[in-house]
């Protein structure tokens, strides 16, 4: 199924009002609100006609202009062989997104990474700790306004 067909199917079967977004080039995606994200994700995984059993990628994004943070989920079904991009956006001052770790185990480390580098909090994650940078690191490096800390444990990070 293509993104349109999947959105149509979801709207018809579950009474939602999802709408795919298209860009000038590349893939299209659907945006869901954080409050229904888990429900939608569960449906996508378990529905007989969708069966997205493979979460290929989960990435955190900082939209600086809109003061928002976002998460993109790249889903794939090895059974039906179709793909879907799902996005969720939250305000920068309260970046809480429900975790999908219990649905796809692979999300565990990806969500920790998004927390570490972009600063999104995943509600319901079993151990949301920094993963790449040390636990006492300051700031979230992939935010566009990130300022590198001058030194870490008395070792300068500059040249």
């Amino acid at each position: 199924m293509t993104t349109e067909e999947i959105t149509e199917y979801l709207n018809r079967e579950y009474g939602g009002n999802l709408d795919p977004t298209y860009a000038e080039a590349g893939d299209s995606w659907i945006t869901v609100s954080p409050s229904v994200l888990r429900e939608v994700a569960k449906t996508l995984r378990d529905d007989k006609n969708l069966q997205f059993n493979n979460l290929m990628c989960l990435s955190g994004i900082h939209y600086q202009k809109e003061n928002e943070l976002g998460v993109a989920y790249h889903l794939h079904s090895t059974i039906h062989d179709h793909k879907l991009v799902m996005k969720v956006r939250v305000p920068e001052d309260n970046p809480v997104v429900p975790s999908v770790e219990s649905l796809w185990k692979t999300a565990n480390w990806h969500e920790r990474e998004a927390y570490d580098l972009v600063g999104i909090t995943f509600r319901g994650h079993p151990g949301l700790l920094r993963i790449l940078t040390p636990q006492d690191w300051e700031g979230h490096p992939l935010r566009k306004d990130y300022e590198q800390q001058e030194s870490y444990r008395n070792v300068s990070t500059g040249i």
Partner: protein
Amino acid sequence: MAPVTSPQPAAIENRTMTINMGPQHPSTHGVLRLEVTVDGEVVTKVKPDIGYLHRCFEKYAESLGDYAKVVPYTDRIDYVSALHQEMGYVIAVEKLLELEVPERVEYMRVILAELQRIASHLLGIGTFGLDLGAFTPFLYCFIERENILRILEKVSGARLLYNYLCVGGLMRDIPTDFTSDTWEFVTSFRPKIKELNDLLTTNSIFIDRTANIGVLPAEVALNYSASGPMLRGSGVSWDLRKNDPYSIYDRFEFNVPVGQGEMGTVGDCWDRYIVRVREMEESLKIIEQALDQMPGEGDVKEAVPRRIRSKEGEVYVRTETPRGELGYYIISEKSGPYRIKARTPSFVNLSILPAISKGALVADLVAIVGSIDIVLGGVDR
């Protein structure tokens, strides 16, 4: 006189112990740190601690502001299979910009990628043997690996990090004796696989240390989104070159080897190992076909844009590297790349380690880590 009471024997305390493996440890393949909780000799819990090689690839990719400048950094994500990292990236950018690539370039990329796959598997197999105490196969693997590196060096000028692919084509023309060199390698390498099999695959010590160890069931592998030999070792026939062909892989005949539990259970360390060995043979097949079909003439820089005019949009492109699915998620703006995320197979495959090493012995943990065949550059980026 007060009766003498014999002292109660103190209850034997059963305490678990936490030991630290790495970041400097000869068999963690780099700077991986594992926090291992052991009950005697049995592992009860493993907590990987990564990030010791976090080199800020994603920050670089968005700060450089130009798609072409990112290529050398993609090399360094997974330095054992640098060409695959480049290939995934340039394919993603080409898809975004809707560029058509000349035939000759496509063939060349496939040949190089398959050569690199063999080189990478040789390194993976050699160090896996080394982890288990077999030193000789490592040396034999490196002899062959050097032969491949010599070809790649002639083509690109570098031994390890090539920076040879570019958006729309190749950096420089193909040397005239490339075809003959590659043919020579292919013919000389076939019998060497048998030699390797004799040295390691059927070695009974090796089998004892790998069969039935670290069994990864197929459902768990899928739920963790494992890929590459890790997934195929569990008996799932899934190869992006076959199932979601990119470049020109749909033109070639080859098989997808899967683990069958020949020495133990499906999905054990031995299965993951044998998948790699068999994949090398399949790669040889692809190289032979590609060499036969490759057009002899053609400008490899024909489609290379002078200046990359970025478009608004986003793509997620995945390719099959020796370690599994490598995905590039590119969000592009008019001014250039806005966000580039590399979803590396090593990162995802390593996250399975806690699930499959419960109940193993400490010595087996080394075998399990070796069989995942991680590259820390890929894990930490």
